[in-house]
């Protein structure tokens, strides 16, 4: 890279710029507080921005429409500050969670069986998979009235709606995971004349675990939303958070509606984090992505 090789007249070439590059001493590992700061400050800042934006939009509303966006103090005074209401909120959360968890349980158990069956028999995969996609593309909301007419207003029709919402991700992620086992690992089992069942248990299922849990997280975060949606159509009896939302609208108690919304998000996030946590516990010792944040 000597200077003389560069034609001096073009002017386009950078002249050799030789300088010594200093070494950087080994950086100490980031301390706990520092890690906390890097992990917590950005979301907190973003949260503050959202709250400011909310307050700004609210202040722009004409006074007779401000009920649409209750203030923080309003939500406290008329909702979270009232012990009776908090009790009701919790009771209704339990009702909603019962629907969500039962529906999710159905999805997971049937979905896993279906994923394994499709993996075992190619013709069943060919037969079932297109209809899974069809099922996923049916607007579930649009068939809720049908479910209602057929099954009534009890617990099971709501569970069925949750199952319809959450089913798709389970068999599809399981099938994907089962199919991506390394060819030679299968050969290894084949050389020992291992049965299909043993190969499934010792090779395919463990391998599919992380993918399947990604599916569980997707389904899990949909389950609470689905449960609340199902309740919007079933207003009789002692209902869950969805019913509370509708009641709050009818009674013009928008603070309570916001409280229910916040509760619903908390529950949804909790289900999502549960599967994240469980997946990490089960797989992080061998599966790289499982141990990572998020």
């Amino acid at each position: 890279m000597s200077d003389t090789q560069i034609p001096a007249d073009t002017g386009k070439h950078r002249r050799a710029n030789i300088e010594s590059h200093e070494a950087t001493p080994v950086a100490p590992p980031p301390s706990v507080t520092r890690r906390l700061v890097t992990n917590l400050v950005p979301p907190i800042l973003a949260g503050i921005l959202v709250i400011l934006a909310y307050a700004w939009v609210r202040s722009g509303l004409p006074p007779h429409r401000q009920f649409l966006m209750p203030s923080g103090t309003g939500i406290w005074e008329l909702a979270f500050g009232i012990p009776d209401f908090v009790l009701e909120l919790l009771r209704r959360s339990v009702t909603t969670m019962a629907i969500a968890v039962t529906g999710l349980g159905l999805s997971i158990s049937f979905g896993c069986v279906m994923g394994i069956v499709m993996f075992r028999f190619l013709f069943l995969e060919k037969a079932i998979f297109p209809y899974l996609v069809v099922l996923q593309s049916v607007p579930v909301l649009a068939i809720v009235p049908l479910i209602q007419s057929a099954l009534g207003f009890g617990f099971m029709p709501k569970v069925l709606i949750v199952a319809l919402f959450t089913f798709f991700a389970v068999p599809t992620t399981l099938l994907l995971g089962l199919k991506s086992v390394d060819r030679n690992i299968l050969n290894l089992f084949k050389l020992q004349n291992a049965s299909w069942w043993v190969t499934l248990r010792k090779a395919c299922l463990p391998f599919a675990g992380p993918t399947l849990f990604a599916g569980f997280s997707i389904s899990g975060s949909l389950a609470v939303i689905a449960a609340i949606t199902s309740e919007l159509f079933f207003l009789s009896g002692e209902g869950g958070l969805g019913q509370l939302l509708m009641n709050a609208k009818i009674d013009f108690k928008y603070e309570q509606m916001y409280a229910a919304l916040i509760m619903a998000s908390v529950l949804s996030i909790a289900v999502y984090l549960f599967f994240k946590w469980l997946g990490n516990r089960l797989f992080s010792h061998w599966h790289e992505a499982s141990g990572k944040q998020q």
Partner: protein
Amino acid sequence: MSADSTSTTAPEGQAAADGASLPGGNAIVFDHVSMTFPDGTEGLSDVNLAIAPGEFVSIVGPSGCGKSTLLKVASGLVTHTGGKVWVDRDQLGYTFQDATLLPWRKVQDNVELLMELRDFPAEERRRIAAEKIELVGLTGFENHYPQRLSGGMKMRVSLARSLALNPAVFMFDEPFGALDEITRERLNDEVIDLFVREGFTGIFVTHSIPEAVYMSSKVVVMSRRPGRIQDIFEVPFAYPRAPEMRYQADFSELCGEISLSLRKAIEG
């Protein structure tokens, strides 16, 4: 055992009940073996090769010539479409191009895997695994997960896993191709050590002529696809082999001869 390369009914590899039933007392016999894939490409064509017990045979050939297919046919992973294969598959060792460890199993449990599939009692599995882990020099790493091991260490786990079944025939399908030169040469020595100690019959597919000569008692050169046996070279050096052998004149000379044969094989 007449040759019938057009036969579409695949003759099953003959699992010999007693060693005497293998023709000529050999460990592996390929008798006019051919292999045509479902899409019509010919992988192997009329392969005849007999390997005696205790031999270590390397197979070299142009890439895509069917070297790996030959191992797959011998092990029963794929079924040939003509001719006969004689081999005792009951005690078969097999290493693939990568270590194929189960990432969720610790070293110990990976080494126990094949014994588990063969329903060995737990105590025996533990004892044999410890023994084989020591044999490949990984004592102390029993509780490590594969993702924390280097490429060479993973390969050693893979070797230990196969050795646990005490194989009579050990097939190596280009096992060290992905490793660096130094690790590769060390593993060559280790496999020779294992071969001398355990006394299996070795069949080793490789791209590297020096590796083939260094390790084997016989080097087989295959022609380009569809693979046939083009040449067989006897390697006259005694076991165990010293690394210095690689720098001796007669070693280089043999490598040169095989190179020449391989060049002919590629040109057809």
